[in-house]
């Protein structure tokens, strides 16, 4: 909400909304009745609706006493039955889950070609071996379902099939993939328009020093983490659905680059296995990143109009170096604690000055959260072996329930992007060129080596990107969602 000292007609609505919410004015029953009689054109997810209803206590007098007794009796009875019948079955189930998890954490892919079998470390385990399947008790069927839900089954993406008909390339997107793409796209756009604070952070206009001179940085919204594999996959599939084959070809991921660094396992799985859905997308060209920003801008603005969201059109692009400096300087972003070369945040590179470093030191003191993973995400992956990298990725998994994989789950995206630790494409303000910024490089030489490899192959496993959103024409960002 706006913090201008004066009230003007632009920020009046925000203040009136505050006023309504804070309830200093007496809220009349008539107003409540009016609001409750209106029709609201929103889609209701039946699953979420049912979930909410199930949580509510059932109606009727004496509900609490009777239902509590019944519930206790049912639970105790069910637990006793399950205990006796599934004693042996549980052992097998646990073994299967353990093997599945082990395979995931070792980076092995699980081929879930059908519901009843999968392969771990070359051993095919079929669920026919589970005694649970042979027991027809309804209680146990329910239990079996829940076991399946908690056991992570990562499915590979269906990479669009490309058939060469000699005349031109022919792309086929399956119905399942189309459905999934549209679902994820809608979630992405919804969260964008609702300015989900776990995904996007509005940064106010601010004066900062850049290259030794004071500059005023216009307000912008910074994405909290890099674009993920799932989001980029959705973007690519959507390009195909819109018949934008040329853009697709320019933007598609080049997983082969992993192999230049002897990381063949990741070449096979990183972009295609669902367990990496929320990790930052890498091995994409600068053009791919720019096309993603244009696609997101186009789709968000179209979606806002379709859903009658009152807002100015958004502009979406890669961040500028000065915006990164500003974000850190005003405390919206925090530099990882690490030694080594920190590109933009090196005083000798000239972008920042002593005052910036002093301010960063002050902000660092306020950092409350220290976790074991801090050390992991502040370690640059460049030069590591595949085993070392996968070991680090695996340490991220216990932090969040890995299911469901195909959803926009900001907290998990945030954690996995930290663990992914990639450098990012950014505009350099003084030249207008795109540079790669990042932290914790072993040395400037290592960074320059990675950079030359990036330019050679036009992609790198160590470089991703994130967008910023701007509301053009306003000197100070006015949150358009409120």
């Amino acid at each position, binding site marked *: 909400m706006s913090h201008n000292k004066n*009230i003007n007609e632009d920020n009046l609505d925000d203040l009136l909304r505050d006023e309504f919410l804070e309830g200093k004015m007496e809220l009349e*029953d*008539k107003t409540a009745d009016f609001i*409750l009689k209106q029709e609201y054109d929103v889609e209701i997810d039946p699953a979420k609706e049912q979930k909410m209803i199930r949580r509510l206590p059932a*109606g009727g007098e004496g509900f609490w006493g009777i239902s509590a007794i019944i519930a206790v009796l049912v639970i105790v009875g069910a637990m006793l039955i399950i205990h006796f019948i599934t004693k042996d079955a549980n052992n097998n189930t646990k073994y299967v889950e353990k093997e599945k998890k082990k395979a995931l954490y070792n980076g092995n892919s699980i081929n879930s070609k059908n519901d009843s079998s999968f392969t771990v470390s070359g051993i095919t385990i079929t669920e026919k071996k589970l005694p649970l399947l042979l027991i027809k008790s309804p209680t146990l069927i329910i239990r079996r379902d829940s076991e399946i839900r908690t056991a992570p089954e990562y499915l590979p993406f269906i990479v669009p099939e490309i058939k060469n008909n000699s005349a031109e390339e022919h792309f086929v997107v399956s119905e399942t993939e189309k459905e999934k793409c549209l679902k994820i796209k809608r979630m992405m756009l919804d969260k964008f*328009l*609702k*300015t989900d604070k776990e995904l996007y952070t509005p940064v106010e206009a601010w004066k900062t020093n850049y290259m030794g001179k004071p500059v005023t940085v216009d307000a912008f919204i910074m994405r909290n*983490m890099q674009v993920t594999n799932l989001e980029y996959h959705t973007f690519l599939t959507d390009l195909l659905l819109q018949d934008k084959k040329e853009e697709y070809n320019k933007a598609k991921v080049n997983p082969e680059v992993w192999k230049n660094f002897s990381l063949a396992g990741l070449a096979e799985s990183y972009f295609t296995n669902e367990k990496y859905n929320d990790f930052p997308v890498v091995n994409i060209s600068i053009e791919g990143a720019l096309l993603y920003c244009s696609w997101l801008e186009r789709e968000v603005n179209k979606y806002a109009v379709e859903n009658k969201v009152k807002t100015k059109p958004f502009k979406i692009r890669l961040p500028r170096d000065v915006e990164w400096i500003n974000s850190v300087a005003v405390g*919206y972003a925090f530099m990882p604690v690490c030694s080594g070369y920190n590109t933009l945040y090196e005083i000798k590179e000239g972008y920042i000055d002593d005052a910036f470093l002093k301010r960063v030191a002050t902000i660092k003191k306020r950092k409350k959260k220290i976790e074991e993973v801090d050390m992991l995400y502040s370690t640059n992956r460049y030069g590591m072996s595949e085993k070392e990298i996968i070991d680090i990725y695996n340490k991220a998994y216990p932090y969040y329930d890995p299911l469901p994989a195909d959803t926009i789950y900001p907290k998990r995206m945030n954690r996995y992007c930290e663990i992914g630790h990639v450098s990012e494409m950014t505009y350099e303000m003084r030249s207008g060129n795109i540079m790669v910024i990042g932290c914790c490089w072993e040395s400037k030489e290592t960074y320059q080596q990675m950079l030359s490899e990036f330019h050679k192959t036009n992609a790198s496993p160590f470089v991703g990107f994130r967008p910023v959103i701007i509301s053009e024409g306003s000197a100070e960002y006015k949150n358009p969602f409120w």
Partner: protein
Amino acid sequence: MPELFSKKNIGDIKYLYTKFGRKLYGYGVSKWNLAEDDSWEIVYKTLYKVKKVIDKYTFESEEKFSGFIFKIFINYLRNHYRDKKGKQVDTIELNDMHGKITEENEEKSVTQSKRMSCLQKALQQLLDWQRILLLMRAQDFSYEQIAAYVEKPSDQLKVYHMRLKKQVTENSNECLGTAKNVAQ
């Protein structure tokens, strides 16, 4: 008292949800830009609270009951926004969720409370229907919807609205100017 509005009905969670829960969910999502999950959570808390305390109250009419349930919803909505604001001050990482650490927060808070106080004074000078027009329009209700409530022709409301905004802005700023002088 209408049949629909019997004590039995309002104690029935199905009735409560169908009659109010869905509307409140829609209101939260469309007018307050709540995320789906947040809106469901607030509706859940509201209905749960209503169910828990309903026996202690009697209501003269459905309108009174609507007012009661809506006030509970607004309380939870307000708490939700306060929580969200509080969380923004938390920790931040370069590749992590960003939050705000500023030294100006306290100053902003004082400025904000002065502004709200002046705005309230300006609103109190208005007639009921004028205040409602401003408050409902700020929530994006259409002129047609508001017209039925304030019993004014919808084609005139836009003009009224513009004039009222100007009037409230001027009166609030006049009050703010006075407040600033006193503080100095």
